[in-house]
């Protein structure tokens, strides 16, 4: 009964979505206020219906209802409750429902936080989001129904993949989807602006906070995916340039470029068409990611069970949404005005150079990901494109971008002087170079890459200090504290986010440069020392979990004779799918991670064991978290809080129509 209610709720949601996607947009085009006002209640209605459907599926999982095909294939009676619920998004159909649910959350958020927008704009934005949801609901109801029944019901379920039975599973997909789907808001803003012809700096100002919040979620989502792979997969890696990882990284790159380009459009009214194109690109890459994961077109450890019918549906949907947007862009964008002028050497110029670099990086990741497919489609052979390619290509593109990160904030708007900038930054550059060249020796090993990484990270930090000092000197106010407090949150957000990048670079440089790995055969009582830490193997015992049995090792860790910790790596066998899994033991720390992974039992009771010492690895994800916090701080800037609170009177639609658009 409950699954049928959920199914019916989705059908109703589709009807509401069709209404939401058509009436308000038409109403905005002809200036009919009543039609436009359909948008808000429609969005909220959709949210309630999808929420209902989501809860019905959750109930089916919680209740172990194996007469629902999806529940039977991804759950099991022995699966603990929290994983049963996380299994909602454990496979294709349910993850689509999660997508839809998160889309409805964003829709309802837009319906609440858009009171300061002109009515026509809001109607169009919600209308476009409605159209997107039509696509997803139709997809679910035709070829990917999570509520499909299994008659006769299974006695027990096939269980969730053991790799997914982990806290990361509970948080990573929702975070990631909040980002992916969040870019649909920026996309809808862009389409709404193109449809209405009101492409001015105000559009950029409205669009920015939504873009930034989506970007924050995306940052956390991607970072979590990487962190989860690190501790779950058991081989100590954290990024593999796997097609699905790339599918989440590309929208992030586009979103980062978009945030920076919106800064130009907001402040100086320039490059509106480019910002619109980036917004379309970011969401297009989200949709492309959805396609790549579910179509079977690329092999990936992440891919859902594939079905050519599903792949075709998504491809057609992709073609319609993105193709339509790009045609609209080609038609309307040329009419957009230019905005304020600026020199090539200026803050605007540097922000746009940042964009060029980020988009080139994005293009490279896309090229590398799709290239095997290109060659295969042209019958030119089968190749693999993996980490060696991406690492080789990505670094030269990102290095200039990081250098710009130091120069850009100091450059003046409109026109800046390169010699003057060099003068202001000479101290920062000297300190960065000197430290980067000498520090590796102190740390134990010098390679060009380690030096480069340290140079970039220290450059970011020193240039932030130079910029801060200059602003403090110029600021009004008596006390240092007063002047610091007077600086807008948007500035501190930028500082924090850029610091996050520096932390990230430090983490990557130190881990790649200084990590140590040892593959050992250990008998009980034997020790091994890496990175100054001594590991003693104290034996194996059998441990029972709710749906698995494990051989658990005990490793006592000490440093210079002092006890540090005890670590318990496991080798688990899950009953239902009879799969063996390695659960590595990690002792995280601010300056290093210790990582122990059990291999197999060898003759004589010994075990093969892999030990790692990974310095600064948590700075990788810590840096990402700081980046996201920077974004949150920027969004909490006064001007957004004031704008939201003020609830400016919406400009009547008829007046909007009359307004000329060329600025």
């Amino acid at each position, binding site marked *: 009964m409950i699954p049928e209610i959920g199914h019916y709720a989705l059908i109703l949601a589709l009807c509401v979505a069709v209404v939401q996607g058509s009436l308000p947009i038409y109403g905005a085009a002809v200036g009919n206020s009543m039609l436009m006002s359909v948008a808000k209640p429609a969005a909220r209605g959709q949210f309630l219906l999808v929420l209902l459907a989501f809860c019905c599926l959750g109930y089916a999982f919680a209740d172990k209802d194996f007469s629902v095909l999806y529940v039977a294939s991804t759950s099991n009676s022995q699966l603990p409750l929290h994983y049963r619920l996380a299994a909602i998004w454990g496979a294709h159909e349910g993850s689509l429902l999660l997508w839809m649910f998160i889309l409805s959350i964003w829709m309802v958020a837009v319906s609440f936080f858009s009171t300061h927008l002109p009515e026509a704009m809001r109607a169009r934005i919600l209308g476009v989001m409605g159209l997107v949801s039509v696509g997803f609901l139709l997809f679910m109801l035709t070829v990917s129904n999570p509520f499909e029944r299994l008659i006769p019901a299974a006695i027990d379920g096939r269980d969730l993949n053991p790799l997914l039975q982990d806290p990361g599973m509970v948080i990573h997909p929702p975070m990631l989807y909040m980002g992916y789907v969040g870019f649909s808001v920026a996309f809808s803003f862009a389409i709404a602006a193109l449809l209405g012809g009101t492409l001015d700096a105000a559009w950029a100002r409205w669009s920015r906070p939504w873009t930034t919040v989506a970007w924050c979620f995306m940052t956390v989502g991607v970072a979590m995916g990487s962190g989860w792979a690190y501790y779950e997969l058991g081989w100590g890696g954290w990024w593999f340039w796997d097609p699905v990882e790339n599918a989440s990284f590309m929208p992030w790159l586009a979103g980062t470029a978009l945030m920076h380009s919106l800064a130009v459009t907001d402040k100086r009214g320039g490059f509106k068409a480019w910002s619109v194109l980036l917004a379309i690109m970011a969401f297009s890459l989200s949709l492309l990611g959805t396609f790549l994961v579910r179509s079977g077109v690329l092999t990936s450890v992440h891919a859902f069970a594939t079905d050519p019918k599903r792949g075709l549906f998504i491809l057609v949907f992709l073609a319609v949404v993105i193709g339509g947007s790009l045609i609209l862009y080609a038609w309307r964008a040329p009419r957009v005005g230019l905005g304020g002028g600026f020199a090539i050497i200026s803050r605007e110029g540097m922000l*746009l*150079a940042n964009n060029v670099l980020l988009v080139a990086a994005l293009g490279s990741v896309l090229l590398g990901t799709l290239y095997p497919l290109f060659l295969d489609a042209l019958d030119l052979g089968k190749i693999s494109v*993996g*980490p060696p390619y991406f690492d080789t290509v990505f670094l030269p*593109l990102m290095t200039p971008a990081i250098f710009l990160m130091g120069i850009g904030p100091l450059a003046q708007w409109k026109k800046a002087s390169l010699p003057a900038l060099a003068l202001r930054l000479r101290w920062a550059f000297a300190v960065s170079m000197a430290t980067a060249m000498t520090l590796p020796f102190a740390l134990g090993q010098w390679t060009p890459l380690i030096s480069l990484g340290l140079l970039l990270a220290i450059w970011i930090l020193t240039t932030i200090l130079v910029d801060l000092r200059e602003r403090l000197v110029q600021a009004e106010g008596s006390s240092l504290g007063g002047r610091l407090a007077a600086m807008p949150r948007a500035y501190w957000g930028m500082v924090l986010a850029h610091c996050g990048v520096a932390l990230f670079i430090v983490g990557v440089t130190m881990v790649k440069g200084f990590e140590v790995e040892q593959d050992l055969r250990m008998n009980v009582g*034997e020790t091994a020392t890496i990175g100054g830490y001594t590991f003693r193997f104290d034996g194996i015992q059998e441990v029972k979990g709710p749906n698995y049995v494990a051989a658990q090792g005990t490793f006592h860790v000490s440093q210079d004779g002092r006890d540090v910790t005890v670590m318990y790596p496991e080798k688990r066998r899950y009953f239902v799918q009879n799969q063996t899994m390695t659960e590595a033991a990690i002792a995280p720390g601010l300056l290093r991670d210790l990582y122990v992974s059990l291999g197999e039992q060898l003759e004589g009771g010994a075990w093969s064991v892999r030990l790692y010492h990974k310095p600064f690895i948590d700075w990788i994800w810590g840096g990402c978290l700081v980046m996201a916090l920077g974004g949150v701080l920027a969004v909490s800037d006064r001007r957004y809080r004031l704008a939201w609170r003020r609830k400016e009177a919406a400009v009547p639609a008829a007046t909007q129509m009359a307004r000329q658009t060329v600025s």
Partner: protein
Amino acid sequence: MLLVPSLATAYEAQPLAANPQVEARLKALAVELRCLVCQNQTLADSNAPLAEDLRREVREMIAKDMSDREIIDFLVARYGDFVLYRPPWKLTTTLLWVGPFLLLGVGATGLVFALRRRQKKLTDVTLSEEEHNRVAQLLSEGTNRP
């Protein structure tokens, strides 16, 4: 567990591999090779039986003093370029390797051209605006004259 220390130092665990130097070379090679069974892992990390067999083959080739190039050629002759995670330089992969830098070049050029073009357009406009202002100024001066 209380361990009674022996007269010698506590037992040091031995490396898993028989020959660490060979193993180090194997690792350097295997990290760039693709496991053909679990196609999303490197040859170094995969536990598939074929991966173990291939690692054994590579070890034997290293012991026979074959160069890295020869070992890679051996594998490519049997499994094709698919087994390499670093795509080889070939006619068909030129676009792949050159592409990113081409993109950067095109983007940078495009940006410079776009900025120059808009400079010209705006200077054209501002000139006539300046003229407008001049005219307005002259007109206002005219009306202010007694």
